[in-house]
């Protein structure tokens, strides 16, 4: 199916009234949740995921994708107005967004954020539209050894660029792989790692795991902090950037769109990393780097544009290879599997309405984000006045609803609580939780692929070094890993602490 036909099919699906409603709701809900400090896109999707149970696969992903980039934008609002980042990737936003707000330019700062995000998202979506079918075509020719190499590489890269210690990140990946192995072995049908529990013989579901680690764990972590009351917020004036702002930001926006697009495809490259790398590049290229950190419009534009571009391009490896590059898309992978749709090379052929419907809905969602966030900014700002001491207990109640209604089992709620406590402790001891959820999703892919590869090679590991596809991948991944480790090392030297990706 060529690109234009595919997009046409996609828009037919995305423009159906119920899907338009879902993407609108998703963008709004995502922005609302993103306003809450500490609850990033992963927690937002984990908590809101059960809303989509009654929907079909396409509608569910359309809504969750809307929540995803709505949440990314929502986190910017408290970052700019209050110097309180809503999630890890909005930490960089505070560096120049808040100083602009302090100088009475909160409106243009929010406007630059919205417009930069829109342009970055649009460029990334064009890239997604063109490259995704090409990658899917190539990916359909890969076999189990290539799948294993890609999945292991994805997990390893995400662990290497995780915030904090790499030893801890790899431990978290191992933990995620073991949790995924609980239950019944797919090939032999034997129970394993159930510790004698009948309930565990069904395995651990992704919803209690994700809600527990990212939702309840965060709530427990924030329970220790002094919850702020309602903020004193001034009126926002003049949302649109001035001509001078445009002159300064137009080139950084275009550059960051492309940079964010490529970073988003890489495992762990979306979100915080794309924001930081783009900010660093812009600062280096700027003729007045001393302005950065004091309200530089181009610094703000660079980080916001790259962030949204990477959020969109991250769908390429998910949809075409079945390999989620970050924790949010790992959850979306889980949702598709729940609806019996397997993301990967065959998705474009087996379920073109899902593949193209998601892409088309992202075009619509990108426009909606701009349409909502410019005129409705005043409403969102008012929501910041609702004390978090009232908002966060609601998160617990919603999380309970969601986890329980997934399988109608109280056992899942207990699992979520246990992982909530584990998530709290992991955060306290500075472990990044992203590798856990990625490993949980990729574990079955790696194990099944590995066992099939060993059957193909009669037990010889040389199969991974004999095939041109695996050799090329390993070389490419080694180069990418070197670049990303270098970029992350620079990030950890210069960025603030406590910037764990969620």
């Amino acid at each position, binding site marked *: 199916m060529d690109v234009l036909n595919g997009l046409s099919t996609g828009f037919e699906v995305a423009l159906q009234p119920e899907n338009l409603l879902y993407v609108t709701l998703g963008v709004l809900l995502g922005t609302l949740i993103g306003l809450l400090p500490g609850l990033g896109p992963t927690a937002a999707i984990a908590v809101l995921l*059960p*809303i989509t*149970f*009654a929907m079909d696969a396409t509608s569910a992903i359309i809504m969750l994708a809307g929540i995803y980039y709505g949440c990314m934008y929502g986190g910017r609002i408290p970052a700019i107005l209050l110097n309180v980042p809503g999630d890890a990737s909005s930490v960089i936003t505070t560096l120049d967004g808040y100083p602009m707000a302090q100088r009475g330019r909160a409106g243009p700062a929010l406007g630059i954020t919205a417009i930069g995000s829109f342009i970055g998202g649009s460029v990334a979506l064009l890239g997604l539209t063109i490259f995704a079918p090409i990658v899917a075509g190539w990916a359909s020719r890969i076999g189990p050894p290539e799948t294993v190499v890609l999945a292991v590489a994805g997990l390893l890269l995400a662990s290497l660029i995780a915030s904090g*210690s790499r*030893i*801890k990140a*790899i*431990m978290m990946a*191992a*933990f995620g*792989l*073991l949790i995924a*192995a609980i239950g019944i072995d797919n*090939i*032999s049908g*034997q129970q*394993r*790692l159930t*510790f004698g529990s009948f309930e565990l013989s069904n395995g651990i579901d992704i919803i209690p795991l994700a809600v527990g680690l990212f939702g309840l764990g965060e*709530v*427990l972590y924030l*329970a*220790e902090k*002094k*919850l702020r009351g309602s903020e004193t917020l001034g009126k926002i004036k003049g949302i649109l950037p001035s001509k001078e702002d445009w002159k300064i930001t137009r080139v950084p926006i275009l550059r960051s769109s492309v940079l964010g697009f490529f970073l988003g495809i890489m495992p762990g490259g979306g979100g915080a990393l794309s924001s930081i790398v783009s900010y660093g590049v812009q600062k280096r290229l700027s003729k007045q780097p001393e302005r950065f950190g004091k309200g530089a419009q181009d610094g703000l534009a660079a980080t916001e544009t790259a962030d949204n571009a990477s959020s969109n391009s991250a769908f390429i490896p998910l949809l075409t290879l079945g390999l989620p590059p970050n924790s949010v898309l790992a959850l979306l992978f889980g949702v598709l599997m729940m609806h019996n749709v397997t993301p990967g090379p065959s998705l474009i052929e087996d379920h073109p309405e899902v593949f193209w419907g998601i892409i088309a809905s992202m075009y619509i969602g990108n426009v909606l984000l701009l349409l909502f966030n410019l005129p409705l900014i005043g409403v969102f700002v008012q929501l910041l006045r609702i004390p978090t*001491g*009232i908002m*966060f*207990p*609601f998160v*617990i*109640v*919603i999380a*309970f*609803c*969601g986890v*329980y*209604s997934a399988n109608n089992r*109280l056992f899942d*709620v*207990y699992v979520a*609580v246990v992982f*909530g*406590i584990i998530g709290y*402790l992991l*955060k*306290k*001891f*500075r*472990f990044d939780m992203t590798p856990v959820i990625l490993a949980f999703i990729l574990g079955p892919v790696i*194990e099944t692929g*590995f*066992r099939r590869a*060993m*059957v193909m*090679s009669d*037990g*010889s590991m040389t199969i991974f070094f004999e095939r041109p596809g695996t050799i090329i991948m390993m070389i490419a991944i080694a180069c990418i890993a070197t670049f990303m480790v270098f970029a992350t090392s620079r990030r950890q030297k210069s960025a603030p602490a*406590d910037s764990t990706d969620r």
Partner: protein
Amino acid sequence: MTAKKQRAFTTRMFVLRRGDKISATAALVVFGAFLAASIGLEFGTLASAGPGLWPTSIAVLGLVFAGLLFALGRDTPVLAEDQSGKRLLLTMAVLVLYAPTYSLVGFIPASALALLVLVRFSGGFGWVTSLLSAAIGSIGVYAIFSIGLNLPIDAF
């Protein structure tokens, strides 16, 4: 400094100085448990792997890295603010007791109680705000999830 404060301070310093050793020890226990659970399973051969090969390999990998963390780790845990232990324990207690309360009395009373306790005692708001939040929140969330989204939740 009172004896109680002295003990709290000593505990805090112990955890701060040995944060990575504490977490590494916990990880060694967890990975050790997984190893013990998987070692009794059939390994098979590489050409025909049994159910035990994969989890055993990963558990060993986890143990190795936990050992490295124990030897090399130097991170300090994130400090909690003063007087926050009670809020944390309260929130944890609500989380742990929420499900059993639901099975006894249903969603609306269980949620109302959870919201009341958290808004009043963790959020520090007055009784009126807390009661209103509890009533509106429990009924509102039930309405959205059970009636609006048709998800299976028992009200009472």
